């Protein structure tokens, strides 16, 4: 988007009248523009006062304690086990740098090209020696890749970019989500290829509670694609993380995540 297009959207942006995808596009432009943020600031100074225009109502009695109790409970629920990953408050601060960023980025465009070639899923499955002669599984893998590509270019898709941790500093990933959908596509790049006896596992965390989001493999080029099915809309989760687990997956993360992000 160019400056005139963005400036046309700055008033609705400031008032909260844009959809998430539109907000992302505006924020992407603002990050690299020296003019539009000044216009935004003028609108923001006015809208900043709007909250003070509402009648003040006392919150319910006990709400303060309920908030503090939830924090305490969330920290206790994810207490680290022996050799396990630390999923408490301080640990996830590493992912705060990987807050949702707007697309597209150069890396994201490279991902689109990779998805579009159609060869990714095929090479992945063949490498894992699970699909020789199995045309149905091959077709499923290609379909998964095509659907992910369709989501990647859809304006209604929410893009959540993930960053590698110290354990995998070159890793990068994207979670393609849609509002109110409990399905999402995880696409990863730059991870170490899967080795026999091990599998990558995705985790979703909400209010300190983590659930498994399934397992997947990474090919010799460090690429992996995985369809996530969650109990509730994926955008409602606050943290996503990827760990390397023993084959078959684990009931809880047993190692430090290699990739992830928070929102």
């Amino acid at each position, binding site marked *: 988007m160019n400056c005139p297009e963005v400036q046309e959207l700055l008033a609705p942006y400031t008032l909260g009248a*844009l959809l998430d995808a539109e907000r992302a596009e505006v924020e992407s432009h603002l990050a690299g523009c020296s003019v539009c943020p000044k216009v935004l600031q003028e609108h923001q100074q006015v809208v900043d006062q*709007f909250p*003070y225009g509402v*009648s003040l109502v006392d919150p319910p009695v006990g709400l303060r304690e*309920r*908030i503090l109790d*939830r924090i*305490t409970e969330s920290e206790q629920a994810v207490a680290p086990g022996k050799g396990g990953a630390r999923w408490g408050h301080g640990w996830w601060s590493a992912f705060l740098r990987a807050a949702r960023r707007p697309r597209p980025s150069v890396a994201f465009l490279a991902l689109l090209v990779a998805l579009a070639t159609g060869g990714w899923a095929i090479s992945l499955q063949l490498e894992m020696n699970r699909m020789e002669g199995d045309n149905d599984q091959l077709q499923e893998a290609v379909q998964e890749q095509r659907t992910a590509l369709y989501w990647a270019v859809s304006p209604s898709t929410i893009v959540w970019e993930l960053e590698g941790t110290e354990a995998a500093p070159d890793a990068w990933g994207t979670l393609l989500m849609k509002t109110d959908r409990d399905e999402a596509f995880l696409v990863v790049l730059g991870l170490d290829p899967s080795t026999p006896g091990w599998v990558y596992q995705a985790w979703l965390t909400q*209010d300190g509670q983590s659930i498994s989001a399934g397992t997947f493999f990474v090919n010799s080029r460090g690429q992996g694609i995985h369809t996530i099915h969650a109990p509730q809309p994926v955008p409602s989760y606050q943290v996503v993380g990827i760990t390397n687990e023993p084959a078959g997956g684990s009931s809880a993360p047993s190692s430090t995540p290699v990739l992830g992000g928070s929102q």
Partner: protein
Amino acid sequence: MGTEVTEKYAGLSDEQLVALVAQGEKEALAALYDRYGRIVFSVALRLLRDPSEAEDVTQEVFLKVWARASGYQAERAPFARWLLSITHHHAVDEIRRRHRRVHTQPWEEALNQTVGSPDSLGDGQIWANLGLRSVREGLEQLPGPQKQAIVMAYFQGMTQVEIAQRCGAPLGTVKTRMRLGLQKLRKLLK
């Protein structure tokens, strides 16, 4: 944890409290709640018009503060702006997630419920400079279509497309009304 928390942190700025929250001090979060819990709940209630949902949003807002304190940068925005922006965003998300149609409420009624409170928190410099007693007074000085677009967007959580459909106006016209309305409010300062 109660009065003693308030006294312990009374001399600290919001930003100093956030820094303590980032270090894992729950008491510091409690102190921020004591300062802003009322206005956060009130903004959420204003948009959602349901105390239970407003309570849920208030919880989520302060849990987000807890989770993202280490990522907060004071030089980018004062804490109050950051917090109330999160609040508004969460409330609007909740409206849209549940496909709520709270904007079945006539927008004029929504405006009437937007009154300034003498004991509102924050400096409210714009309104003090204007000699206005309330946000509502400022909005009342706008032309009807501009006032309508701003109220529907901010206080009823409607998207620009929904506003255009409701008003029977082109989308471009709605965007212009919002922009001119905010510019007019700002010009009242000069």
